[in-house]
């Protein structure tokens, strides 16, 4: 089941980003390695919703709105409070890695295939079984 799910995610991301499925490795960054831009993240969300028959609320998979709060950002960098909030609200994100250079503009570089897999696993685990 896990392999099947990963394959489905691989195909979904490959289709959205116009890359070969083999390039969609777990540790690949969606932006740095696979060339994703903002519109691609929207495309990915819509495709995942369709592929897994789920609804992905705004900001749940790829955060961003959290950092519109001025308590969490100072001079373009995420504050310790902001990092803590990211850990709580977006447990799929590798916050500790991002914390090494927490520039807001670099957050999307930390959106990885692994993060998508964890999110989908979690969502499917919480779904009532038929």
């Amino acid at each position: 089941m896990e392999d099947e799910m990963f394959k489905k995610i691989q195909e979904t991301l490959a289709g959205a980003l116009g890359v070969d499925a083999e390039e969609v490795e777990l540790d690949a960054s969606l932006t740095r390695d696979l060339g994703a831009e903002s519109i691609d993240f929207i495309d990915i969300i819509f495709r995942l919703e369709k592929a897994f028959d789920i609804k992905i609320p705004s900001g749940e998979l790829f955060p961003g709105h959290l950092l519109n709060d001025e308590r969490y950002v100072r001079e373009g960098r995420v504050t310790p409070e902001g990092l803590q909030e990211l850990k709580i609200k977006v447990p799929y994100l590798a916050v500790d890695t991002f914390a090494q250079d927490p520039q807001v503009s670099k957050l999307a570089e930390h959106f990885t295939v692994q993060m998508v897999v964890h999110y989908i696993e979690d969502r499917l685990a919480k779904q009532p079984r038929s």
Partner: protein
Amino acid sequence: MTIRGIGIDLITYSKARKFLSTHGREKANRLLTASEKKTWAAKSFSERHFSCLLAAKEACFKAQNRAWMGTQGFSDIEVNTGSRGEFQVSARNSGKGPVCRGWGSFFSNDKYVGAQVILWDNTPECG
């Protein structure tokens, strides 16, 4: 009045075409403001128009130096296009909050459209 930021973005027509053919007009509408939906409903909704809107919104988003815009972020930015390749933008914070305004211009060739925008901080708390 001070400059909040400048932003620039390119969108290939093929990317906009792919998005529209995969998800359709209904999903594309989720990226537009109510006013933009009305405007585009009255015109034919071409991939070229859609590309212009996306490029302008992304450029505006970059001028704000934010993390990632999401569907809410796209629909927080309103683009009003002029007749000479110029446009005006206004950006809200998560559907509420103060408005930043700016203006910009498009440039294009047969493969892509680009947008460059300058955004003004016209309220001290503009965020």
